[in-house]
């Protein structure tokens, strides 16, 4: 892994996968409300992030938790929170390796 932060990697992936200018993407950005990413675009992003980090983002569980009111949309879809979740998944993967 390079010295790039998780946020830098995620922001670059979003800019490459969608047509959102990189400079518009900040840690406070809400991927749905602010960046207008729909669920299908989000799948492409999840696919790219899964590959990039070698993890399996539990997108299905997250969606279910939000739909059932067990989590707020912000918990997963505000980018700084998304990055924190990714860091947790990477740490878990490394701990298990």
């Amino acid at each position: 892994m390079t010295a790039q932060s998780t946020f830098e990697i995620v922001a670059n992936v979003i800019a490459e996968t969608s047509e959102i200018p990189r400079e518009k993407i900040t840690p406070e950005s809400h991927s749905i409300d602010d960046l207008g990413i729909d669920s299908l675009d989000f799948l492409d992003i999840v696919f790219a992030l899964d590959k990039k980090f070698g993890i399996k983002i539990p997108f299905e569980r997250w969606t279910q938790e939000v739909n059932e009111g067990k989590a707020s949309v912000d918990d997963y879809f505000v980018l700084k929170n998304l990055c924190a979740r990714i860091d947790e998944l990477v740490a878990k993967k490394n701990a298990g390796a």
Partner: protein
Amino acid sequence: MRLEYFEMIDRVVALDRDAGTIHAQADVPAVSPIFEGHFPGHPIMPGVLLLETMAQAAGYLALARNGLVQMPFFAGSSKAKFRRFVVPDTVMDIRAKLVHDGSGYAVFETRIDQDGRVADAEVMLRIMDFPAEDLRQAMLARARTIGLGAGIEAELAP
């Protein structure tokens, strides 16, 4: 193939659930209204239907892997290429290979051969709970018809 019913896969030749591969075949019909329009005097399989055929092969692989408890839906494709014409009354070999097993989605490399490569594409499927029991029953019946169930019959609950 029953093109008008979007039944694109006729039989499963080989399935390896663990490796994430499937080889299926499709008999291109000799006659179909589709060939009357596409194209008069030069009947060929439309590229979109070749893409659908590749997506369905990937879909049956996804169904086999989950024991037909969730339904794959075509969510996207990239790098689709249609290299040669497919004409009526021929047989196509379709192969799909799982390249990424995500959460609620999966990505496959797919291809069609007919004495050499005809088409290829990367296919993404969204995998969701069956929205209707009728659909699940129809997929079970179809899976048995094409021979998908041969290796996984025990898992195919009624």
